[in-house]
C-alpha cells in the first residue's frame, strides 16, 4: 500500500502556538517524522531600537520583551547597566527586586500552567491557574502600579518602596496560593489521564539538553543541576535558602514537576526575603552617561537563563544591546523534542517549553 507523508503547518494562528510562531510538522499517520520551527513574526528590531534611547528609557521597553516575565527582563537590563556603571545597589532595593522577581516567576509559571491545561484539553486548570495568577498580579498593581508591564527596577535601585501593608498582603497571598496550588496538583498529578499524556513524552537526554543550550526548567528537568540564582548568585540570592529542583527523567512531566516545585520554592524565597528585608533607601542617583566598555549580566528568568550584553560608548545611549533569550535557544531544539512523537503530543511538549514570542523574536 502506498503511504505518503503530509506536511501540517501548525501556526502562526493555531491554538497550540501561544503566540505567533509556526511549527511545520511532517506526519506519517500521526507520527511526526520531521519538524521545522519558524519564528520571526514578531521581530521588532528591539536591540536596534534601544540604540536610540537613553538608558532609563529602555527599562519600560525591556518590560515589553515578554508579557509574563517583564520584571525579570527589566531586571537583567538594569543589572547590565549597573555592571557597566560599577555601582552597588542599596540592600533594600536588592531585596525588593528579589521579591518582585519571585512574584514574577510565580505568575509566569501560573500562566504556563494555564496554557498547559488548555493544551491538554483541561479548561479547569486554565481557569484555576489564572485565578491564582490574579492574586499575584494584584500584588504587582500595588507594588509598581501595573499588572504586566511592571517597569519596577531602576538603574540604581527600584522605582518605589513597598506600599503600605504590602508585606501583609504578600504573606496572605503566598499562604493562600500554596494551599490552593495543591488543588491544581490534585487535578493533574493524581489523574491517570494527565500522567499518561506527560510521562515519557518528548524525552531529552542530559547531553542533548546541554548541547542544545536548554536553560531553565527545561534543563533542570533533564537532570542538570544548575540555577543561576544559586550557582552564579546576583542580588541577595546567596543570602537566601532555597532548593533547586532537579528531575532526572527529561520528559514533559519532568519539566512540569520542576516548574511546580519552583513555585513552592519561590513562595519560600518571598517569605524569607520579606523577613530579612532591611530598612533603608531603595534607589541611588546614578550618572547619566555610562563609561565605555562591554559588560553583561545574566539572571534566572522564569523560562531560563536571560542574558543581556551591553556595549556602552560613554554617551547616554547604549552602543549595542544584545538579548539572549532563553526561548530563542530552547525552541531551536524543537525538532529534536517532537521527532518520533505523535501529533497529539506536540502541544504537550511545546507547552512545557513555555513559549513567549516577544523575547524570542525581539
Amino acid at each position, binding site marked *: 500500500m502506498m503511504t505518503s507523508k503530509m506536511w501540517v503547518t501548525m501556526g502562526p494562528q493555531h491554538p497550540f502556538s501561544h503566540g505567533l510562531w509556526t511549527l511545520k510538522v511532517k506526519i506519517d499517520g500521526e507520527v511526526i517524522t520531521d519538524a521545522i520551527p519558524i519564528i520571526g513574526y514578531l521581530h521588532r528590531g528591539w536591540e536596534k531600537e534601544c540604540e536610540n534611547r537613553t538608558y532609563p528609557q529602555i527599562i519600560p521597553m525591556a518590560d515589553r520583551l515578554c508579557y509574563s516575565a517583564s520584571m525579570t527582563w527589566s531586571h537583567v537590563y538594569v543589572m547590565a547597566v549597573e555592571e557597566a556603571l560599577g555601582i552597588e545597589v542599596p540592600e533594600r532595593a536588592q531585596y525588593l527586586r528579589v521579591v518582585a522577581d519571585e512574584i514574577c516567576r510565580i505568575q509566569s509559571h501560573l500562566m504556563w500552567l494555564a496554557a498547559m491545561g488548555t493544551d491538554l484539553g483541561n479548561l479547569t486548570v486554565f481557569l484555576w491557574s489564572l485565578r491564582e495568577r490574579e492574586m499575584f498580579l494584584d500584588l504587582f498593581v500595588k507594588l509598581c502600579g501595573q499588572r504586566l508591564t511592571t517597569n519596577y527596577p531602576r538603574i540604581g535601585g527600584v522605582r518605589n518602596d513597598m506600599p503600605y501593608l504590602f508585606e501583609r498582603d504578600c504573606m496572605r497571598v503566598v499562604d493562600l496560593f500554596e494551599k490552593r496550588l495543591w488543588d491544581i496538583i490534585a487535578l493533574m498529578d*493524581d489523574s491517570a*489521564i494527565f*500522567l499518561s499524556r506527560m510521562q515519557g513524552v518528548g524525552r531529552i537526554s542530559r547531553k542533548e539538553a546541554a548541547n542544545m543550550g536548554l536553560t531553565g526548567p527545561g534543563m533542570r528537568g533533564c537532570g542538570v543541576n544548575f540555577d543561576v540564582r544559586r550557582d552564579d548568585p546576583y542580588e541577595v540570592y546567596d543570602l537566601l535558602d532555597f532548593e533547586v529542583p532537579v528531575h532526572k527523567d527529561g520528559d514533559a512531566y519532568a519539566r512540569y514537576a520542576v516548574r511546580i516545585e519552583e513555585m513552592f520554592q519561590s513562595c519560600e524565597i518571598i517569605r524569607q526575603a520579606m523577613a530579612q528585608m532591611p530598612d533603608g533607601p531603595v534607589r541611588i542617583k546614578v550618572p547619566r552617561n555610562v563609561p565605555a566598555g562591554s559588560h553583561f549580566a545574566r539572571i534566572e528568568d522564569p523560562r531560563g537563563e536571560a542574558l543581556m550584553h551591553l556595549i556602552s560608548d560613554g554617551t547616554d545611549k547604549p552602543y549595542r544591546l544584545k538579548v539572549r533569550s532563553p526561548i530563542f535557544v530552547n525552541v531551536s531544539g524543537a525538532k529534536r523534542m517532537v521527532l518520533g512523537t505523535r501529533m497529539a503530543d506536540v502541544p504537550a511538549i511545546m507547552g512545557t517549553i513555555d513559549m513567549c514570542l516577544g523575547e524570542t523574536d525581539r
Partner: protein
Amino acid sequence: MAIKYMDKYPKNVALRGWILKPFLTTFKNMIKTTIHRPVTIMYPYEKEWIPDNYRGRPGLVFEKCVGCGICERMCPTTCIELVEVEDEALGKVKRPQVNVGRCMMCGYCAEYCPVEAMTVTPDYELAGYTREDLIYDPYQLKWENTTIGMEVHLEEHLPSNLAKGVTDKPTAFYEVDRPKLIGEKCISCNRCAKTCPVDAIEMIVVGENAKGKPIKHPKIDDSKCVFCEQCIVICPKDALEINEVL
C-alpha cells in the same frame, strides 16, 4: 529549605483510584463556588479596585505645572509634546500634550516631574473613534483627584549622602543637579534667561569687555531651578553644561 512537592509526586495513581481524586477535587470546588460568589468580575458593570498610583494615562495638575519639559525629555515613546495654551488665569503658558495612543504607560513623566504636576491616573478606558481623539491636550489631561500621599515620587538618594549615613532624605536630580556655566564661552546672549520656565536665571553683570559694554553672565537661582536642561539645549555656544552631583 526542603523540597515540598517533588518528593511526594509522582504517586502511583493505580493505587489511588486512577481518577477519583480529581473528581473529588472538582466536586469540592463546585460546592464551594456555588456557596460563595465566583471570582469573575463582570467588567463593564463592575470594575476591579485599583489604587491611585495605578499607571493609567498620564494626568496633569494644570496649576502646578511649570512647563519645564522634563516629561517630554524622559518619554520613551516621544508621545509628550509641549504646546502653548492660552489659559484664562495664567495667560500664555507651555503645557504638555500627550498622544495617549502612543503612550506606553510607563509613568516616567509622573516620576520625574519636579513639581508633581504630572501624575499617573487610574484611568485606563481610553478608546476613541479616531487617532486624533487620542491626542489629549492639557485640558483633557487634567486630573485633580489623586489621593494625597499616593503621588508618584522620585525616591533617589545621593550616593554621597548614603556614604555620610544620611538615609532618610531622598534627593532627586532636580534638587541637586544644576547647569554649570563655562564663563569664557558665554556670549551674553540672554537666551537662557528667556527660555527658563521657572525664571531661575538672572543675567548679572560680571565685567566690561574691550568696547566698554557690560558682560552679562547667567546666574542660576538654585532654589528655583528644576534642572530641565532647556538652557543647556538652547545655549548657542554650549557655555552651559550638565553638572551632575552624585
